[in-house]
């Protein structure tokens, strides 16, 4: 098992067999990942088919611009990762380290943007299930990018702040708010029941994806360290290749999540 000095494990007959095995194993693992997310996609499909109005209404509270920005960030990181694999293949250690570093920075940027989005959802009570407790002014004027614009307004400044306690339990959703002003009431009438389902699915999907990004960052850090120690070269770069595959999958899943959650209409 002296993989460092001699990278061929005793039960393989040659390095090619070992590399092929690793690659097949990784592909199978990626298949299980797709099925793991597949369960959530199925839940999404079932609820969207049964309650399209929830999705049409609730997705307006997601910030398209931030979502698009994150898509670009992840696509760039996929590119830098692929570049890293190529550099490992060619044995260019310095470029390999740079591209891994860049990938990491992009991953951090992705999580940062995600954090901004989560924070504003949290602030406005746009959460899952029982915790769905929308703050008035967001309800009153749904529009694209509203979250970004409304964020500077502190909840205590909202004149109807004390009405927040009147919010009906989650089952009846925002309709329970519809007493304060005429305009607000109009907006609330449009809000369908069970909007929280959308946010439940949103947080589950993006949360699980975020967890994968975190794991991916850990893996990138690990191969960064190993390439710093000079473990990889043109004849052995399997881990770089496999982590690259994993990272592309994480990216790919986001490419599905973005239109499904942000671009409904």
């Amino acid at each position, binding site marked *: 098992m002296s993989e460092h000095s001699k990278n061929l494990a005793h039960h393989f007959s040659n390095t090619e067999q070992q590399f092929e095995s690793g690659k097949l*194993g990784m592909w199978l693992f990626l298949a299980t990942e797709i099925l793991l997310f*597949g369960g959530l996609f199925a*839940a999404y499909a079932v*609820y969207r088919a*049964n309650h399209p109005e929830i999705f049409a209404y609730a997705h307006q509270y997601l910030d398209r611009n931030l979502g698009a920005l994150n898509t670009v960030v992840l696509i760039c990181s996929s590119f830098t990762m692929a570049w890293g694999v190529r550099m490992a293949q060619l044995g260019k250690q310095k470029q390999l380290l740079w591209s891994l570093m860049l990938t990491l920075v992009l991953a951090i940027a992705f999580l940062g943007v995600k954090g901004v989005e989560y924070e504003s959802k949290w602030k406005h009570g746009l959460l899952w299930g029982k915790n769905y407790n929308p703050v008035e002014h967001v309800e009153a004027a749904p529009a694209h990018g509203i979250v970004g614009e409304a964020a500077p307004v502190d909840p205590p400044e909202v004149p109807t702040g004390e009405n927040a306690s009147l919010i009906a339990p989650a089952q009846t959703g925002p309709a329970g708010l519809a007493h304060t002003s005429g305009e607000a009431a109009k907006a609330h009438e449009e809000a369908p029941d069970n909007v929280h389902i959308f946010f439940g699915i949103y947080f589950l999907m993006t949360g699980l994806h975020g967890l994968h990004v975190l794991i991916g960052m850990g893996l990138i850090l690990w191969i960064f360290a190993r390439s710093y120690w000079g473990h990889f070269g043109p004849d052995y770069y399997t881990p770089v290749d496999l982590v690259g595959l994993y990272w592309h999958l994480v990216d790919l899943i986001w490419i599905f999540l973005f239109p499904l959650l942000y671009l409904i209409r």
Partner: protein
Amino acid sequence: MSNYLNHTSGWKSWVFTLDHKRIGIMYLVAILSSFLLGGIFAMLIRTELLSPGQTIMDADTYNRTFTLHGAIMIFLFIIPSIPAALGNFVLPVMLGAKDVAFPRLNLMSFWLYCFGAVFAVFSLVTKAVDTGWTFYTPYSTTTSASVISMTLGAVILGFSSIFTGLNFVVTIHKLRPKWMTFFKMPLFLWSLYATSIIQILATPVLGITLLLLIAERTMGIGIFDPGLGGDPVLYQHFFWFYSHPAVYIMILPAMGIVSELISVFSRKTIFGYRAIAYSSVAIALFGFFVWGHHMFTSGQSTLANMIFSLLTFSVSIPSAIKVFNWLATLYKGSISLAAPMLYALMFIFLFAIGGLTGLFLGTLATDVHLHDTYFVVAHFHYVMFGGTMIAFLGGLHYWWPKMFGKMYSEKLAALAAALIFVGFNMTFFTQFVMGTRGMPRRYYNYPEEFTTAHQISSIGSYIMGLGFVLIASYLVYSLMWGKKAPGNPWGAATLEWSHCPSPPPHDNFAEVPSQDTDPYDYSIVKYDEESDSYHLA
């Protein structure tokens, strides 16, 4: 002589071993411990049901007991039994390989199993789960029991199962010797391959389902909660999308073992090799599209019920084909009734009942009456116990000499097999009758008219228990004082017997064996009276 058992010593040489054989043995010990635990719960259930109302425990304790019996037997015993314990030991040797493709992943899979088992059993000491092993919502999201610990355990066990499956698929694809084409592989490997595919494709869905359940309990996400506009029946779809294919994770490797045993102990090439191999794959594929037959009475649409009923019948055909092929293999054979063969024949008997009673449940009109009654309980015990457990015992007796280099007492083995056969049928055949007459499952209390049947069933379970005690005794005895096993006592032609001493050396083979023949061509091994063993001709 150096073998994998005495190659190195000390507890570290086991706990950190990368040798698939040692991992297989550790798995064997772990799953047998789980079986003991699950078996104790089974005995408690049967004892409680000796009379209507309270016999030895209250209703809540009973509900926890049957939940733990089910969860432990399914997740900790049956699913890993044949693939992870026997498969781990046998697969690389049968394949002429030195190890599985990813030995470290294999070890991790084992420790994940232990870790998951600890979580599952932890729920025992806290507030034992009372939901039934199916964890149906909204009961599971509202009960006060420690559902999270148990489901988290099941998720971890799922990962363990995925890693084993992944390892096997890669091993079979990449580590086969050049001469061994797919159609020269022993059928046990075909069945393990099909099983692994299901493990890889279905288990992640169980993972996400149980994670959703945990999210539901901890955060109130509302997906399955009718109070929040969620759909409790959606959970059942998710759950059975994994758990029905999981039934084939349990039965396919058992069929693989039976194919080996029937051929070896008839000393005849297996009849219809390709049909058996293809039918394994067919079962694995069809198995993904029949989950809805667990939900015929759940209120799902008539159309869905019709489709699921039709597809369910499609799975019965490959199973039937296998049975006919095994029978045809016996024709003009030279049949030895050694212990493994007794189990193989018992498998055919019991699996025939298990399979044929499945027809009543696949048929819509009769399933409405039989669903969630003891008929279902009897049916799946005939398949899971009469099928998988019996084949596991057959495999254990078959590979025992290879694993430990010791022979057990044939006479005691035959006696134990007889006890289990009689006890099993007493226990579960009565349950078919109770089921058709309307006895619902998971009942603590029951109408007087079922008392006699329940008592017969309980007595049967004690007889069965006795059989297991006997097996444990003579197997442990054989380890200490058993006769030394020759390299090939059964005259098998697969690599683990024909090219490998008992027990195998650390690296299995010094070099890749070249035996470019059919795995069931017995002309290559000849009996030698002096060593009481078969040798390559």
